């Protein structure tokens, strides 16, 4: 059995997934994980892998790791409706990424001014079970957000 450390993709405060006001995430339909209330403005890769999905609007991305691990970082809730406003892509879909590599820059003020919540779920959608998760404040690309056992 292997343990894979998933780093925080954002600076901020960890919030339980169940408290996210969006049932897709709160009911773990998209997978288990945690949410982060961000304090910074750049989302980085939480793990080394392939950036298989970077949404056109830059509001969400997904990374796969060999061995069946899939991670989704969703910046804010219902932010697809912003169609890219408040987000700037710093990476290209399909590329290999290192843990901590910048993926998207975002502007909280713009996103909130558009009426969206910036609370950002980070979920494991593939193989593995979360055996440990962080609480309190985390630093992007440095602190372990959760650990997957696979």
């Amino acid at each position, binding site marked *: 059995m292997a343990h894979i450390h998933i780093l925080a993709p954002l600076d901020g405060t960890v919030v339980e997934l169940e408290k996210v006001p969006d049932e*897709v995430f709160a009911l773990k*339909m*998209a*997978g288990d994980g945690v949410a982060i209330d961000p304090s910074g403005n750049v989302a980085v890769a939480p793990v080394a892998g392939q950036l*298989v*999905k970077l*949404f056109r609007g830059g509001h*969400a991305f*997904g990374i*796969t790791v060999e061995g069946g691990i*899939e*991670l*989704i970082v*969703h910046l804010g809730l219902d932010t*697809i409706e912003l169609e890219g406003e408040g987000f700037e892509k710093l990476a290209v879909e399909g590329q290999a990424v290192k843990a901590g590599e910048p993926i998207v820059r975002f502007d909280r003020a713009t996103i909130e001014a558009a009426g969206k919540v910036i609370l950002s779920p980070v979920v494991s*959608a*593939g193989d593995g079970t979360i055996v440990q998760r962080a609480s309190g404040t985390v630093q992007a690309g440095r602190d372990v957000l959760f650990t997957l056992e696979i």
Partner: protein
Amino acid sequence: MENTVERTVVVGSKSGLHARPAAIFVQNAKSFQSQITLGKNERTANGKSILSVLALGAEKGDQVVLTISGGDAETALTKLVRLLEGDLG
């Protein structure tokens, strides 16, 4: 004997197969034993992996090919076609 069924479906959700619709689709797909794939143009997605479905990038109005093979393929096809054609948000 393994049963394989295939159907071309037009995506009905207004945001395409984005997080919410993809999550609902995958959750339902996982309730079947059959192998389930979604194809769009040259790409194929594992219907039981949300990230794989998201990576397909299917938008509202896009045609996707749903291929299901296994013992419960017929039941799965009926259910999943209805989900894909409907508006899941």
